[in-house]
């Protein structure tokens, strides 16, 4: 199975640590992740808000590029990019006329042989993941899926849309104790991070408060946008809530890296706004 890698724009910038930790973990697991050649931006929310054709054309170019070099599947760690690629794949394969028109637009033909994979699917396939765990992640964690990993259910066909479990199972394998909480799949405010920071502060605030009130010691995420809102927008969230909220927000790949005993620096943990004061070590050595 030839698996390609679509980083997406944010993993080269604001979500750099997601990419770093993923590649570190992949390396330690003995996997190589060749990037989709000359990939472009998926268009994100802006494209489908403003232009229906562009919203399909940009992902179609990525999919075609991956297919051209024989990638049978593409790992898309960013949940937002994942959603755009997955939705585009679905729509193009549902409607042959549309597929031909969009192929014409991007001057490349996507025939549908390349599948789109999210980070949880990819990690779930690692055989005997628990065997790689050197320092069990003995913490209460809130697994936060956000919107686009599980919805729309009919298209992504991944886990169950209410109370999904894949990430919880993964974290359990790492030795963590996932809490049962209420905001697993509520929206964080997504692309409004810059344009409507007030709304992001409200929505992300609800999420953090519920996790904290149930005793979570860390938020586990699988999406740069969720991370941006929950981590970098923490000052706005705290200001709105009128209190300090110090729960760190950790990418699933960082959590895995920590559990595998990889150095924190290699996992980009120093790049977080909210200091990550926990390691994967057992309860005796809580702080780094």
């Amino acid at each position, binding site marked *: 199975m030839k698996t390609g890698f679509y980083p997406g724009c944010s993993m080269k910038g604001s979500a750099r640590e997601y990419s770093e930790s993923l590649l570190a973990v992949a390396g330690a697991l003995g996997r190589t992740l060749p990037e989709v050649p000359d990939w472009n931006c998926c268009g994100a929310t802006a494209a489908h808000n403003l232009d229906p054709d562009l919203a399909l054309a940009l992902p179609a170019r990525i999919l075609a590029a991956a297919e051209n070099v024989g990638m049978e599947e593409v790992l898309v760690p960013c949940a937002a990019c994942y959603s755009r690629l997955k939705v585009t794949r679905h729509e193009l394969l549902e409607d042959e006329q549309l597929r031909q028109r969009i192929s014409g637009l991007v001057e490349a033909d996507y025939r549908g042989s390349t599948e789109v994979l999210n980070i949880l699917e990819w990690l779930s396939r690692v055989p005997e993941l628990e065997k790689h765990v050197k320092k069990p992640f003995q913490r209460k964690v809130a697994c936060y899926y956000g919107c686009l990993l599980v919805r729309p259910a009919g298209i992504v066909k991944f886990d*169950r*849309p*209410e*109370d999904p479990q894949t990430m919880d199972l993964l974290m359990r394998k790492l030795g963590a104790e996932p809490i049962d909480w*209420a905001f697993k799949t509520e929206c964080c405010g997504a692309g409004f991070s810059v344009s409507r920071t007030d709304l992001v502060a409200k929505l992300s605030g609800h999420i953090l408060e*519920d996790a904290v*009130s149930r005793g979570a010691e860390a938020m586990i995420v699988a999406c740069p946008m969720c991370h941006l809102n929950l981590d970098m927008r923490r000052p706005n969230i705290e200001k709105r809530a009128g209190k300090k909220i110090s729960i760190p927000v950790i990418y699933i790949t960082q959590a895995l890296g920590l559990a595998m005993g990889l150095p924190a620096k290699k996992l980009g943990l120093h790049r977080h706004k909210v200091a990550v004061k926990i390691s994967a070590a057992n309860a005796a050595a809580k702080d780094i």
Partner: protein
Amino acid sequence: MARIGVFICHCGENISATVDVKKVAAAAARIPGVAHSVEYKYMCSDPGQQLVKNAIREKNLTGVVVAACSPRMHEPTFRRACAEAGLNPFLCEMANIREHCSWVHEKGDATTEKAVDIVRTLVAKVKKNKALQPIQVPVTKVALVIGGGIAGIQSSLDIANAGHRVILVEREPSIGGHMSQLSETFPTLDCSQCILTPRMVEVAQHPNITLYSYAELESLDGFIGNFKARIRKKARSLDETLCTGCGLCMQKCPTRRIPSEFDAGLGLRPAIYVPFPQAVPNKPVIDREHCTYYRTGKCRLCEKICPTQAIRFDQPDEIVEVDVGAIVLATGFDIKHSDFFPEYGYGRYPDVIDGLQFERLASASGPTLGEMRRPSDGKVPETVVFIACAGSRDPAKGIEYCSKICCMYTAKHAMLYRHKVHGGKPYVFYMDVRAGGKMYEEFVRRAMEEEGVQYVRGRVSRVFERNGKLVVKGADTLLGARPIEIEADLVVLATAAVAQPGAEELAQKLHVSYDTHQFFAEAHPKLRPVETNTAGIFLAGACQAPKDIPESVAQASGAAAKVAALFSQAELVRDPLIAVVDRQAPPVYSSCVGCFLCQSACPYQAIEKEEIRGRDGQLIKTVAKVNPGLCQGCGTCVAFCRTKSIDIQGFSHEQVHAEVLALLNRGERDA
């Protein structure tokens, strides 16, 4: 040689105004085989009918064509007249020259010509008609009622009181059905068990009723008036003739923590049990799945304690075979359980319950003895949210239809809650309130106006737990779809009413059709609502569609009346316009090749396999055979048959071919 009489009616002027009836009579007289042709002003009048009768006798007619109105109007009239004159009634046909000719065309030659065509067509047909005898089928005057809920109980009592024997089969250890689980009933709030249990006792004591509880229908053969049913009496593991129902065994049974089906999982029962104290029959069963003896081979405590030595651990299931003439299906409904609604947390949070569980909480005989205490911690709930349409009217996750009873029972639940918890806050999330029924709207208004139930118009998006409360996230569409969050102590889902599990299997056993939701299908949605498409099988209660108690009882009595009407006849007489399979003398025996395409096409399961055997008992061939009791005469099989071996009386190949030829044959018309 055929001697056909043709009788042309003027119908006052209804026909003669546009059709030249004299010309038609003259033309008819020239058709080969026509021995007599007359016209008359009112053929259906007494003198008109006399005309027909006289001609039959005097002219020795072998067939009659009455050219008048639609056969749907007067075919029975003239067939009766023929029979009175000694001519087989099925040798009489109507040529419809009124509705299909004189009334729809202008006066003129073309219209008269068409009338002649119609007459010629029917003369050709009647020449091929055969004398037929009405079908007579004997009737076994015993009814089988399947299902011992309120509908089955009502049907059984009505049939039994009409003087007929009834066999009532109930799957559970006791009759009573869902009604026995209810606390109080809308719109009068009388206690469900108080009005039901006397009926249950009446069933048990009625001399005409044989009750098989803890039993299921195994198979059914036969047809209307002549069914043969095999009933599996599941082993109760005790001798019912010895058991006195003293209940000692239930008190001593050491396996006591089994969720009670009767209490919808909210209460516990022992492994040897009756579902509830007023059970009929009041004889326990041993639940072999949970009983320590069946699991480990040790215990037998009940056996030791039983004062009459009634326990029979090695009792097998018993098969009983009965002959019955009619069947009433009254298997009721179920509610949609399971966690199909993950966003409401049903099955995840113990304080999110369904309507039936609420009934048990509110019932004086329930697990809390009627005190309103929530399942998780026994606390009295201060705020209760009722969610209507939890699964109903929801094509995505539930069912698309309206379950009909929920609006009313939700209003009742909210009311009962207020009666039990003064100052409690009940909220109802609803989409529409459907309260059509006698005193129903008044009941709902009472809930809103006098009982302080607050109605929020909107559907709940989600229920989740926070700090020991259930947070209900909804919106009120009457307030601009404003989001509303209510922190509740108990959430009650008005889950959808669905068909019983196993309804499909039962329908297939009985050859009864059912809809896409596995509810049994009535023969006609308006005019035959208690009959099925299978003659002799009737429907009562919620097995046909969700129904409340009064409707179920009404339909049950309707079904009983149908059965009583059926049983009032010594024999069933039916028109013989049914299919028949070709039979010939040896060595052909039948042109049927036994492909049984007809069997797969028949909507009534009227086609059976018949083995033709020689004198030595050797199988010669297997051919199709039509069961005259079941065949409804649609003729679908006829068009399916590849060897033209099956034909339908009254519309046979010969008859319709003759009609087509007579109507059309260009250049070969009788000159």
